[in-house]
Each structure stands twice: as C-alpha cells, then as structure tokens.
C-alpha cells in the first residue's frame, strides 16, 4: 500500500526504502496522518455532524437517507452512492450489520475497496522513465509536476528533467522554470509559441543524453471536449514514443477535488486520448471531499496515485485508499 514516497515509487537503485528505519517511518506516517486530518478538519466536522449523530443509532430508513446524502455531498455520484447504500442495506437486512459502529466500519471498507483499483505504484526503473502530466485547465498540473520533481530529487535522489510543453498559457513556462529552480532539477523549454511536441521531444532527448532517471513533461490545460487539443495531446505522446518505445511510462491526470460529476467525463476522454495510468487528486484541503475519484476508479478502473492536501511541498502525498476513506467519513 502506497503511504510514503518510497512506497509509491519503484526506483532503479531500489535502496531508498531501506534507508529509513522503522521508527522514523512510523513517525513520518503519523506526521502525514496528522496533516491530512488537520487539513480535512472542516470536512470531517461537516460530515461527522451528519453521520455520527445518526449512524450510531438504529439502522432505519432515515439512516440510509442521511448516508446517501453524505455520499452525494462528497461528490461520490448518484450511481456509486446507490450501489454502496444498497449493498449496506442488504447486509443490514441479513443481520450482518447491527449498529452504527459496524456500519461505519463496513462503509469505510467498501469505499476503500472502490478506490483500490489497478496498479497504484509508479515504476521509475525504465531509465529514463517518462511521466506525462495532463488535465483540464486550472486543476494543478504545473504545481503537481513541480512538487513531484522536488520529492523525486530531494527524497528519492532521482535525476530529473522537466519539459515545459505548456506553450499556450501565458507564463506557464516561467511557472515551471521556477519550480525547477526550487527542486534543483534540469529544465527544458522551447522558444515562445513552439510546438508542445517538439518541447516534449527535446526534454526526452536530454533525459536520454544525460542519463536522467525521470523526465516529466507538463502540458497545457485543455478541456476534454476540445477535439483538436486532445489530438495535440495524442501527438505529444506519439512524439515521446518515437524516442523510447514504451514511453510515456506513466500518464497522470490531475483532477481537482472540487470537481463534480464532470470529472468522470474528463477522465474518460483523456484516457481515450492518451491511456491515463493514474490520477493526481488535487486541492483536497478545502471542504471538497474528492468523491469523484471513487466514481472514476469504479467506472474507469484508473487508480488515484497522489493527493494534494495543501500548498506546501510536503502536502503532495502518495494516495492511500484506507486513509482516504477514513478521512472522507470519520
């Protein structure tokens, strides 16, 4: 289960996980949990008031309705919600669940199971591994690329090249360049208004030349309904594959946790265009619960790999289904 950066990423030297000894890991994990809980405090307060006051009573019609509303309010979506509630109702009818405490435990388990799909780790052993970041405008692509690069460099000691293939949005290149400075990693950009494919090509070429471990390519935000821009994205991918046949090895889509049911459409159309392998669920530090990630996992089988729970560098974290489910409902 991915809980720490060492658990999420499989690196070439493979030794990074062993560097940490057990107590330190425990300490870090507690630190993370504390942070996630703090950041999601408001969320929990809102949910706790709705759930604990009812679920710990008897399992009646009102309980199911309240539960349904809580899941809907978390953007889990009407369909996924209906399935989960129905299953719990059936289990209660069979006498398998008897009180609110059991119900909460079972609910958390079900939610975590929905989130647990596909391969939740990221393999960085390809030498270089190419990681492509895609997503809708304003979901946090550039910030996520910057933060991942920082962690890969500082915590996993990876040699990283960043490619600024968002050549469309004003100042996007400068934004990523600033991140490359903070993370202390190499940076590739093209001349103004250059073709994103050529920037991606150049970044991968430099990664190969310099024997980098990871090449991360940032792309312009685009709405999944813009066919020409989606075709452009597919082209960026083909250009990368021309240099390294299996690349990009990892294609991550950023999904804003405040996104509603449209998130499902976003993930579906991006996956159709470029074979998305994972989700970065950003902006979980507000009151939004990011339940749309569950709908995406369930309907499309794409796992969440990273979550953003704040603006600080350490606030981008590997995803853990159990923690997520608990934070959603505790």
């Amino acid at each position, binding site marked *: 289960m991915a809980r720490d950066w060492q658990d999420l990423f499989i690196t070439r030297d493979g030794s990074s996980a062993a560097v940490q000894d057990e107590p330190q890991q425990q300490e870090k994990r507690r630190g993370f949990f504390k942070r996630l809980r703090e950041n999601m405090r408001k969320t929990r307060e809102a949910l706790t008031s709705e759930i604990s006051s009812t679920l710990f009573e008897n399992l009646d019609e009102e309980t199911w309705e309240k539960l349904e509303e809580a899941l809907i309010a978390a953007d889990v979506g009407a369909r996924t919600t209906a399935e989960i509630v129905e299953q719990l109702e059936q289990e209660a009818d069979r006498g398998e669940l008897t009180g609110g405490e059991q119900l909460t435990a079972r609910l958390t388990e079900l939610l975590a199971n929905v989130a647990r799909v596909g391969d939740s780790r990221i393999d960085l052993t390809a030498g270089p591994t190419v990681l492509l970041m895609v997503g809708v*405008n304003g979901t946090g692509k550039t910030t996520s690329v910057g933060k991942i690069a920082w962690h890969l460099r500082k915590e996993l000691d990876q040699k990283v090249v960043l490619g600024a293939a968002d050549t469309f949005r004003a100042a996007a290149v400068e934004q990523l360049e600033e991140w490359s400075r903070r993370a202390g990693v190499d940076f590739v950009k093209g001349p103004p208004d250059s073709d994103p494919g050529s920037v991606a090509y150049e970044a991968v070429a430099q990664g190969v030349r310099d024997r980098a471990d990871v090449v991360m390519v940032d792309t312009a935000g685009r709405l999944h309904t813009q066919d020409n821009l989606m075709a452009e994205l597919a082209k960026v991918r083909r250009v990368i594959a021309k240099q390294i046949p299996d690349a990009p090895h990892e294609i991550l889509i950023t999904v804003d946790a405040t996104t509603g049911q*449209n998130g499902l459409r976003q993930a579906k159309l991006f996956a159709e265009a470029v074979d998305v392998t994972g989700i970065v669920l950003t902006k979980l530090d507000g009151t939004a619960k990011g*339940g749309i990630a569950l709908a995406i996992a369930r309907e499309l089988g794409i796992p969440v790999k990273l979550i953003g729970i704040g*603006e600080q560098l350490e606030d981008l974290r590997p995803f853990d289904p159990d923690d997520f489910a608990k934070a959603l409902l505790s």
Partner: protein
Amino acid sequence: MFDSLAEKLQATLADVRGRGTLTEDDVNAAMREIRLALLEADVNFKVVKRFTNAVKERALGSDVIGQLNPGQQVVKIVNDELSALMGGESEELKFSSSPPTVILMAGLQGSGKTTATAKLARYLREQHRSSVAVAACDVYRPAAVDQLVTVGGQAGADVYERGTDADPVAIAKWALDRASREGKDVLIIDTAGRLHVDENLMTELAEIKRATSPTDILLVVDAMTGQDAVNVAEQFAEVVQFDGVVMSKLDGDARGGAALSVKSVTGKPILFASTGEKLDQFERFHPDRMAQRILGMGDVLTLIEKAESQFDEQQAKELERKIRRSEFGLDDFLEQLRQIRRLGPLQSLLGMIPGLGGHQLRNLRVDEREFDRIQAIITSMTPEERRNPEIIKGSRRIRIARGSGTNVQAVKALIRQFGQMQRLMKSMQSGKMPDIGALMRQGR
C-alpha cells in the same frame, strides 16, 4: 452519457396519457428521474430536495388534459420552476458614479480568475468604451503576475504590477491611487486563488476589500464544480459579501449545476459566462439557457410549438405523396428549405433538439449563408430546369451560376447532392417526411 431528462420524463409518464390526472406514483417516478438528473448535473443535493418538492406539488395539483401529454406537462413544470430559480432577467454590473469603478475578483485556485480578469477588461473596453486597468495582486503563484501582464496587455488594459515582493493589500491600494490619478474608468483587481477555509488568505481578501471599497466583487466559479460549490459560495459571501458570479469553463460539457446551487444558496446573480480560451469568449449570462443546459433537455416545447405553427398539415401530406411517387423536385426542396428556415436560425433550432448537447452542436457549424446560396441557385433556374435538373448542362449552368452570384462548381454540387437526396428518398419505404438532419447534410 446522460439521456435528456425531458426524454426520460416522457418515457416514464408515457402510459399516463389519457388518464387525465397524474397519480402520486406517477409523480414520484418522475421525481426520481429529476433528482438523478439534477444530481448528475452537480446541483447541490439540498437544492435538489427543495426543487423536487416544489415541482411535485405543482405536478400533483395540475390538470394534464390538454394539448400536451403528461410527460411534456411535467417537463414544462420543471422548466418553469428551474428558470424561476435561476432568476429571470440577466443582471448587470454596477458602475461607480465617481470613477474608477473598482471590481475585485475572487475565487478558488484554478477557477480562472486571471483569465476572467483579462476577459472582463476586454469586455468593458469593447462594450462600454471604458479605459481599464488591471492590478496584479496574486503574489503567491509563481509567474501569476507575468500571466496577467501578458493577457491583460492582450486585452488592451494597463497592467499595474509591483512584482511579487509587495503585500497584496498594499498593491491594491497603490493601484487604486494610480487608477484615480490616471483617470481610468475601471480598475479590476486580480487576486490569488484561495481556499474558502484558509483563514489567513480570506482575511487578506477582506483587507483588500476594506482598502479599496470595490463597486463590485465578483466570485469566479468553475462550471465543473461539484457539491462543494455551495460551501465555497457561502464562505466567500460571508467574508466579502460578493455581488455577482462569473461562471468559467462553460465551454466544456459540464452541466453547470453549480450555477444553480450558488444562485439558490446566496441569491447572488450570475453575471457573466466565460466560454473559451480566447479573450472574446466572454458574455452576459442568460439564466434561461442555463436552466435548459442543466436539464440537457433543449427547448422541446418551443420546438413543438414552432413546428406546429409553421407546418401546414395539408402541405405535409402533399409532400409525402410526392416523395412516395418520386416526384419530389427542386421546387419542393426549395419549399422545404423555406419552411425549415421560417422556424428560425438553424443553429438555434438544433439547440432545441434534446440529445444534441453543446459539444456536438459546436462541431456542427451551420453556415446560414450556404442556404442562401442554395436558394439563390434554385430560384435562378427556369421551372423546367427545376422539374428536370438533368437538363442543366454547359450554358445553362453558366447562366444559373451568373444569375445566382455563385459559380459553376456550386451549381454542379447542388445538382449532384439533390440527385443523392432523391435516391435517398426513394429508398425510404414508409414514405415519411425526410428528417431535418438528412436534409441538412444534403444541403451542405
């Protein structure tokens, strides 16, 4: 992904036809569909609850005998209630009697504030002939100032910036002084994205407000926002009492239920819709269009009414007869074309058809001038040529091209397409009316 709610409702209530009134069971079945559709459109669940209760009350009390079937009747009630909830007329920005008018932009990260700032600047320059300055108060996100310098410049606004080392409140105050000194009509203050639960940044926003006494405070809301839109709007309303909303990213396929939620919970009007990446893709918001978009139902009722008033039943029968006997000539085609065009611009007509969501619609660009050309070509033909297009060769072609102001290729293409259409009609067994879509494809 979604079927249109209007269609679902009509299917759900199809067997009620003729019974005269709706029973409670009928209405409950309809409410389930409405509830699901609204939730999938991201309307807040509390708003959905209130809404379905209101619709249910009206539907139960209503008499369904009449020209509309029960399904359509409920669709109409839903449409009415939704439009009422969205607010009637589109509302306007306020302008200060002593310039500059100060507009403060606020919102979550990534909602599109900087883009909206530039678009609004351009809009005010074009529509109100205002001189506009924009102030760069987002000192946190790397390169946010650079972004505003670029897009603000493209919008023709003066960009007031002092880099990222100054304090946002100080920048805002300084920008206001400068705008007054330089005699600007409008100053738009772009701020950093902030979470509604981030106390420090929300306090900062309140301080910017205090320091600049904005004429309007606009909250930028992403059209794709889910259930949380309500929390965000309530918090921002509490801290800065914003005056109106800009819905961003409406060019996607999100149903935009957030608009309904925000309006319903805060009572603040949605003033503008941002509908694309280009600076001119920014317009006044129309509540009625949004109501229809949320339901994905198109304006079926208007379409039905229009079609009824325009199509003469007698003519339709005559047409059917001709098609069956393969007597459908260019004259009939011309008449069909005129009838369809009498319904209104084709683009808006297509928008009324359920199931044709915004996405497909934008790709299918209807060029009205193309129809003008077709009409011109046909009317430049002699009656005999219209009956017998095969005789149109060489000099006839040149004459028709000249008469219609087109060229020989266009005349040839039309005759070829008409030939294809005739074959298509022959292949139609039932002899029913050619559908509009087929006609249009042929027409193009």
